[in-house]
């Protein structure tokens, strides 16, 4: 009997006939959740118009950038912004809401901003600009909460943070949310104010639902408003929708100040190559937890091969800064901390698993090694061996040298 046949048999035994529990279907139908509200009737026919208008606007802005003389004017703010080497995406190319174009009267009043200057050079510790186009960028829940209490109106304001986008073909889970509205449509993206903080569960009432150009994973500065006129569409959750920050437009998506530092995935790969020649690291689209940092700003890479019996790297999570990594994993950096005993949160061990069978079962521990802005998940024996110790020490030493520019 082949291994495949034995697996098929084991799986069939494990799963049985799939019999549903008594009353399962009736209970499920009784408890079916509400569906997302469909778009308003007035909005549907207008979608084509919106697309056409958007296309015209984009073409006009591109022309303004490339050939301002064709439009008979001096380079405008968009052109100035696009020439700034630090801005990765011009505002015109990034997401905007549909509502102002379709029904300007229903949307929030746009406050004329000062001359466009892009992001300020003054930054928060995770690289988010403190100002954009001369307007303050609120960063952190406390700052936003203060703003909402002080000015509870529809005037838009700017918020900086980190988004984590789940691929559209991967359904999201939000079982804790009651009902489904445009505020909690289960699609993300997930948002965190500070790099290194968790974006799960959705703790911040902010939605990108009406942004036509979806954001990418990474840092953002967005223009938001509260008291959205569409809040009544949320039915029983209208008060929550009214309080939510609705993203009107994505203004900025990062620059060199938000690139990971001091360690990049390239440097980490260089350190790992001599230690584990067979190791390759893939982007981890699933972003399963384990020892990985689960913050919105972490980029995770997964080892694309079976863990060896000895010490091995399982995954790498890279935060944009050491401060962000410290927020994400407040563990002391270096080999000594990684080799210490004990479970998280105080110890480095975040998991265990047993492989093999019978009396030959081998247990391994998953340890977190923190160096600068990086967390490496390392598999070791439960009782550390000399090989484990040497592997972790050499890995830590290599990463520390790379982080120090050595």
């Amino acid at each position, binding site marked *: 009997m082949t*291994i*495949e046949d*034995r*697996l*098929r*048999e*084991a*799986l*069939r*035994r*494990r*799963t*049985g*006939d*799939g*019999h*549903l529990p008594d009353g*399962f*279907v009736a209970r*499920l*139908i009784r*408890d*079916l*959740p*509400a*569906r*997302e509200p*469909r778009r308003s009737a007035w909005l549907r026919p207008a979608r084509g118009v919106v697309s056409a208008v958007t296309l015209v606007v984009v073409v006009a802005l591109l022309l303004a950038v490339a050939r301002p003389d064709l439009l008979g004017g001096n380079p405008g703010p968009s052109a100035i912004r696009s020439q700034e080497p630090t801005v990765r995406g011009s505002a015109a190319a990034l997401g905007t809401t549909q509502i102002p174009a379709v029904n300007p009267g229903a949307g929030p009043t746009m406050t004329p901003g000062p001359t466009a200057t892009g992001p300020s050079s003054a930054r928060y510790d995770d690289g988010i600009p403190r100002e954009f186009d001369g307007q303050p960028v609120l960063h952190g829940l406390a700052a936003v909460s203060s703003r909402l209490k002080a000015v509870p109106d529809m005037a838009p304001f700017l918020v900086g943070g980190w988004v984590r986008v789940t*691929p559209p*073909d*991967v*359904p999201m*889970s939000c*079982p804790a949310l009651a009902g*489904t509205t445009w505020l909690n449509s*289960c699609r993300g993206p997930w948002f965190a104010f500070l790099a290194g903080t968790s974006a799960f569960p959705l703790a911040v009432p902010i939605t990108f639902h009406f942004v036509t150009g979806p954001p990418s994973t990474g840092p953002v500065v967005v223009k938001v408003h509260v008291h959205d006129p569409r809040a009544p569409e949320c039915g029983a959750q209208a008060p929550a929708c009214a309080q939510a920050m609705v993203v009107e437009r994505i203004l900025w998506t990062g620059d060199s100040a938000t690139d990971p530092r001091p360690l990049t995935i390239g440097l980490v790969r260089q350190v790992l190559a001599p230690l584990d020649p067979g190791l390759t690291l*893939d982007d981890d*689209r*699933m972003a*399963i*937890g*384990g020892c990985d940092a689960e913050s919105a700003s972490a980029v995770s890479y997964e080892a*694309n*091969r*079976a863990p060896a019996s000895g010490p091995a790297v399982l995954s790498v999570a890279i935060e944009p800064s050491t401060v962000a990594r410290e927020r994400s994993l407040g563990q002391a950096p270096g080999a000594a901390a990684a080799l210490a005993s004990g*479970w998280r949160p105080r110890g480095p*061990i*975040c*998991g*265990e*698993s*047993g*492989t*093999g*069978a*019978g*009396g*030959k*079962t081998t*247990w391994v521990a998953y340890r977190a090694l923190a160096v600068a802005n990086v967390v490496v998940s390392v598999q070791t024996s439960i009782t550390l061996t000399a090989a484990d110790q040497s592997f972790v020490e050499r890995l830590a030493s290599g990463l520390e040298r790379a982080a120090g520019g050595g």
Partner: protein
Amino acid sequence: MPTREDLVVAARQGDEAAFASLVEMDGPGAMRLAKAILTSRSDAEDAVQEAFFRAWRQLPRLRDAERWSAWFRRIVVRCAIDVTRRRQRVKEIAPTRSTSSPIGGQGVQAALVQADPSAATADLVASVADRDLAARALASLAPEDRALLALRFLADLEVPDAAAALGIRLGTAKSRLHRLLARLHDEMEADG
């Protein structure tokens, strides 16, 4: 009798009776898939229930009714893995080292033979232990790996379809499958 596509179209328009028929039609398959990924029946039931809830909410976005099976399978896998993730979070919050190591064949035999040392019982236990080698090897895997094996060998999907259901690249699925089979082969050979 309405086809599955007919039911999907009707359910998409809000017909709860049609959706109930879909649950009856595809529930057992979903339950088998969830039980292959998860370790407890109650977890599997939670995952399947959540998968149907999610499918109901998102059904209006499924334009092609013929894609229902693949679409719903992906949701089931995702929900099952989400359940394991939540369990893992609970474990990390209350970190106590698990003492429930996988029960080995020798351990099972020893325990049962000690309880009833008759020769007939010992033979039966030996047979069960031998048959369960693959089951125990499966139980030692990560849920994502069990999901891949279940999609390939229980649902009999081709590797590209299994990769799509898991939301991973084809190359990743192939390499994972290769090393999983090699690992399981080694483990079963060592035990068998």
